């Protein structure tokens, strides 16, 4: 297969992205009032343990898709399964989301519940790709993607339960250092 068109180069999202991208966060906040939602929250830190106060995070969950397809938007133009967040002055982010279920792997088996996460910030010339999984999901032990991650780093992709009811989860991102979050190549 010959690639005729090389993908355009990435450039940093910079410190001012809220001008163009905040509208979707606000629109999501208005619609997420249904019960049965989970909350995922955490902190982002850099090499020096300093909070990353100007990061953009996007979460994608394909658990309701059974084939090569997309989830269609609702009347407000927002698709299901996609969530955008920005960190605040303390480096904290938070989303409210439909609880991910097991997503088809494509070979008849299922992946452990997860979000694919895209991470953007000033200082990153191209975005980072990672995944977040949930604690005590039996499928975590057999998830084909999680098994690609060295055992010693696997915990960096698994959120902690923050509530007895198991609907609030905590997941921190470490951009660099000994406990660096596992990121995927692209």
């Amino acid at each position, binding site marked *: 297969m010959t690639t005729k068109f090389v993908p355009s180069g990435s450039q940093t999202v910079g410190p001012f992205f809220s001008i163009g991208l905040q509208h979707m966060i606000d629109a999501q906040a208005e619609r997420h009032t249904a019960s049965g939602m989970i909350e995922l929250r955490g902190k982002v830190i850099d*090499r020096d343990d300093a909070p990353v106060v100007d990061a953009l995070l996007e979460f994608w969950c394909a658990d309701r898709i059974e084939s090569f397809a997309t989830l269609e938007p609702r009347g407000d133009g927002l698709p299901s399964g996609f969530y955008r967040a920005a960190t605040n002055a303390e480096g904290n982010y938070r989303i409210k989301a439909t609880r991910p279920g097991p997503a088809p792997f494509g070979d008849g088996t299922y992946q452990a519940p997860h979000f694919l996460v895209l991470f953007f910030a000033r200082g990153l010339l191209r975005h980072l790709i990672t995944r977040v999984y949930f604690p005590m999901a039996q499928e975590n032990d057999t998830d084909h993607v999680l098994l690609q991650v060295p055992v010693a780093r696997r915990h960096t992709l698994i959120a902690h339960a923050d509530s007895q009811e198991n609907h609030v989860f905590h997941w921190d991102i470490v951009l660099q250092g000994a406990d660096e979050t596992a990121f995927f190549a692209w």
Partner: protein
Amino acid sequence: MESMTTVQIAIAGTQPEFCFPPYVSSLARSPRLPLIVLPETLTERSGPVFGHGLIGKTDHDLTLQHDGEPLGERIFVHGRVLDEDGRPVRGALIEVWQANAAGRYRHKVDGHDAPLDPNFSGAGRMITDAEGRYFFKTIKPGAYPWANHHNAWRPAHIHFSLFGAGILSRLVTQMYFPGDPLQALDPIFNSISDESARLRLVSRLDMETSRPNYALAYAFDIVLRGHGDTPFEEAW
């Protein structure tokens, strides 16, 4: 899982490195441990589709969002969004943001001593048509100083965020203007080492689309990752 497809890696030089020392803030924010090969599952092969419900009636005209006209040089920006086979990406969400003509962003952390324009917010969004085309009207942004190194100035640019077919097509980039001598001095622009890939971020003056006695036009085509084998449903 011997036959597992994995996520495609960019051709060397056509994308920036995560750590690029001339861009000082990359030093503390880029990963150092090895990046991990990602199996391409349904999660990676699918993606969100955005609908026109997200687009307001002046979102494609940044000069119409206030009572008066913003100051500065009025311009048109347009182009096509294509996939790696050169096929149009229709239904792609494009979000743009930029500084005003004086080089000032309407943002609380922008401390540049240049005036805000009460008639300019600097945000727009649109969805590509069946031929992958987009079009918007704005004013040409100014250059502005930043703290990366002594006397550092960003070349004039417009930020672009795009969603194509599938989450892996996601791209955030910047569009530059032709003939700007600040590009040669800018570590962000020069983080793309492949010259032809770098120059594709510079828009082209397009006299055909310009309107005499009204506005110049700049053409800027964007190629997103993916081969169009992800079915892309009608979103509206």
